[in-house]
């Protein structure tokens, strides 16, 4: 078994055991931290489909997380807390937004693509800030979690925890299938040489747009989970710095490498948490660490594990 797969297996086992471990150390603080990390992992995995495989560096991916979170928050506030309604609504809104903004963004490429996705992300951010009926700048506190198809699964932290873990595993497997399929190969080929793929008869635009919509929907689902876990949504969820965080996770974890985005998300969340227990000014350490990691490691965490596994 290759290094990254082995590491991922260990991580999934550890994650599954977290609620049990938390009874001995960390308590509900540990479970909520791990839930946050897994949700970010889901969002980062979806971004990696774009950055790592399709070569589309989106700087506005947090907007989709925000869309999912706000759809959930607003529907719960308005008295429609059943996931049977929230999920289709979230998927429809995220898909429509991805379809429209993606179609416009894909007219550009390279740095211009980075900046136009940022622009759409900012539009979402400011729209959320203006929803004064739903908290405006201050955000919206949720007084209850969503109703998981009438089962009461989200009533306990443990239920929510395992739902998030199951989603993470499903997304991991789904993306792996997708990346290994013909669809994924066309995306990767178009990343290397779009002209050649175009001349072979594929519509590069259609493939990239499809990938953009899929990634957007997955990130929005992460947003639904986020709203339930935090029981609070705010425009900060969709801020450009959050999109930057997601990119960091993808790149540090290992772009386009198996489980890379998940490693990145877990590593960043744990690192932030660990450093902040050391000192209040943990950013003084985190910033230079980020600089050094990028300067001196190639292929991120997953890259290091792959090399270990081969020897």
């Amino acid at each position: 078994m290759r290094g990254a797969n082995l590491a991922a297996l260990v991580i999934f086992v550890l994650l599954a055991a977290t609620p049990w471990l938390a009874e001995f150390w960390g308590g509900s603080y540990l479970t909520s931290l791990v839930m946050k990390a897994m949700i970010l992992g889901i969002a980062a995995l979806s971004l990696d489909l774009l950055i790592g495989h399709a070569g589309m560096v989106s700087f506005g991916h947090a907007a989709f997380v925000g869309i999912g979170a706000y759809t959930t928050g607003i529907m719960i506030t308005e008295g429609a807390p059943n996931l049977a309604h929230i999920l289709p609504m979230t998927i429809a809104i995220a898909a429509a937004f991805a379809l429209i903004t993606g179609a416009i963004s894909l007219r550009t490429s390279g740095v211009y693509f980075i900046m136009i996705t940022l622009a759409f992300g900012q539009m979402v951010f400011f729209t959320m800030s203006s929803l004064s009926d739903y908290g405006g700048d201050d955000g919206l506190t949720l007084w209850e979690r969503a109703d998981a198809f009438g089962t009461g699964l989200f009533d306990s932290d443990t239920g929510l925890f395992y739902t998030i873990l199951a989603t993470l595993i499903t997304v991991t497997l789904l993306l792996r299938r997708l990346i290994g399929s013909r669809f994924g190969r066309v995306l990767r080929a178009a990343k290397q040489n779009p002209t050649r793929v175009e001349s072979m008869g594929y519509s590069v635009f259609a493939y990239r747009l499809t990938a953009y919509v899929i990634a957007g929907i997955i990130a929005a689902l992460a947003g639904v989970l986020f709203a339930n876990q935090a029981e609070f949504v705010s425009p900060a969820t969709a801020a450009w710095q959050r999109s930057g965080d997601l990119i960091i996770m993808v790149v540090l974890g290992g772009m386009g490498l198996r489980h890379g985005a998940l490693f990145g998300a877990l590593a960043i969340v744990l690192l932030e948490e660990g450093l902040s227990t050391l000192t209040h000014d943990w950013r003084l350490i985190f910033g230079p660490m980020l600089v050094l990691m990028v300067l001196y490691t190639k292929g991120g965490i997953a890259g290091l594990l792959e090399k270990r596994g081969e020897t």
Partner: protein
Amino acid sequence: MSTTLFLIQLLNGVQLGLLLFLISAGLTLVFGVMGFINLAHGVQYMIGAYLLVAFYSVTGHFMAAMLLAMLAALVIGLLLETFIFRHLYDRDHLDQVLVTFGIIIFLNQLVKVIWGATPLTLDPPEFLSGSFQLVEGLMYPTYRVAIIIAGLAIALLLWLLVTRTKLGMLVRAGSTNAEMVSALGVNIHRLFMIVFGFGAMLAGFAGALAAPIFSAEPGMGDDLLIVAFVVIIIGGIGSIRGAFIAAILVGLVDTLGRSMVTDILKLFMDASAANQIGPALASMAIYVLMAAVLFFKPTGLFPVRAAR
């Protein structure tokens, strides 16, 4: 809206545009000549503001503090270039984004540790305080007029530098094809350093100019950095002329948008809805402008060359 109010907003818009130009000029050159995305450029703006406050408290003289702040900003820019950014020119854009993001995180926190999280205020110098009568019944703060004049002067100076000197010629050639310039025997590393240091100094100057109006606070450069990116994308990466026109355009759209959108909306919808949507629409205006420009001209208004 009355004509005087409109005129004042127009001037505010031009003033914001000129500040944006000072930041964007360095950003677009660094981007255009070296192909380097420098997210830390906004932090250099913040540092300029703090340096002015710091040197002012030491010297007690505004102009001396301004000069020292610019020099220090130049030195900091050159240090960053030598120790970090130089190693990133050949790397992927993503690596550049991450490293400069790390520098933002570090410097924002460092500023908080040194000067505290509360905003620092600073009065404009004696001879620039007070107001200025532009036309009958229109008073405008003298310091803001000074910013407009300083901004225009720098823009003119830059234009002369870029179009009339040998250095400017090399910079223009570099933003079209850096490898070719290097192949022709120009020390491209020295050129990069000069461009980078100069850009950092201009951003620091903009921050110092802005300090008496907006006060100095941690993270003040973050949002402005994004707006500066909007400017250089609209203008076309690497184009000083594009940056100037786009900066004024963005400054006007943003300032006039904030003061007028709500009133315009009230013309065709009820007041409470307009009050709710107006501010959001105004904050969004520049991003809508950028998306629209990119829709019709995917490489900006004044493309220097095809995007790479």
